[in-house]
């Protein structure tokens, strides 16, 4: 261990292994915890727990129930399953253009009862007047 070059090289190897280990640890431990969005099945199992569910808004399924002042619509997950969502609250301003939504609430009574609705719009950085050429 007296040779400084060898010692330095050893430290590089130890450093490299430590960094690789750090990356691997980070990648695996963050995987599950980094996203708050749960699947439909998980939302149903969670019952009264407040969860966030993300999914596609089934086009044309949204309807406003005047009597109960609720917005009802169907949400579709990547596997094509649908879930009824009942939302209590003011309709988000950009709901009409929404393709994907996040419903925050809990599952109960045959539908997902959402207290909050987050909207993802198919935003493209194109001007309002110009038609996007695809």
């Amino acid at each position, binding site marked *: 261990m007296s040779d400084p070059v060898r010692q330095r090289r050893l430290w590089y190897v130890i450093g490299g292994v*430590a960094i690789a280990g750090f*990356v691997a640890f980070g990648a695996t431990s963050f995987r599950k*915890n980094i996203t708050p969005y749960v699947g439909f099945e998980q939302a149903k199992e969670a019952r009264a727990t407040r969860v966030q569910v*993300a999914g596609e808004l089934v086009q044309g399924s949204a309807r406003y129930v005047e009597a109960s002042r609720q917005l009802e619509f169907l949400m579709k997950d990547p596997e094509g399953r649908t879930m009824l969502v009942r939302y209590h609250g003011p309709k988000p301003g*950009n709901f009409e253009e929404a393709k994907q939504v996040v419903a925050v609430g809990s599952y109960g009574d045959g539908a997902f009862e959402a207290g909050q609705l*987050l*909207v993802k*719009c*198919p935003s493209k950085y194109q001007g309002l007047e110009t038609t996007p050429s695809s």
Partner: protein
Amino acid sequence: MTRRDILLGALFLWMAAVIWAAFLWAPAAAGFLGQSSRIVFFHVPTAWVATLSFLVSFIASVQYLRTRDPRWDVRAHASASLGIVFTILATVTGSIFARIMWGSYWNWDPRETSITFLLLIYAAYFALRGAVPDPERKAALAAVYAILAFVTVPFLVFVVPRIYWSLHPDTIINTKGRITMDSRMFRVFMASLAGFTGLAAWLYDLECRIEALRRKAEEEIL
């Protein structure tokens, strides 16, 4: 007038033009609520400058460990400070945009979670610096930590947003590598990136000089 003054004047004019163009020359984008798309001209450059600063901090830290020259420690510290300031700016502008477009300031979207990790990781860098009184030990430990911290940056900034579903709008350069941006918006966007990079370079230069003076003053006192 020194060369520095001329560059600073040019930077001031450039940023003024960018701000004017961002609000008045570029069109508002379709699919966004109202004028909210204009935040892209500020939010993305702050995130870019933050990433760049962390990269500079990483390089300076490697150089410090190789040379043990305290000037590299000053550079690493200055760029990490800038990195955290611009990360905070990106977080704040992002949160404002989230309130307008998604309907919530904060809902722990993967983007919000990953930037929180980034802030905590670099906050620990400053905590570490504050905890070690001996300058040489402080510099060496901070350099090792900055190298480890930077390892997480590509993961948190580039990988997470591309593998998790997020409410965040698609990245400017999409997965196909094509830039889908209106030409006026794109020009303002690139000008803003350049302007923010210049702004960060100026702040970096300033911070390094202040820190050098501070250390010199300390030496004189001791």
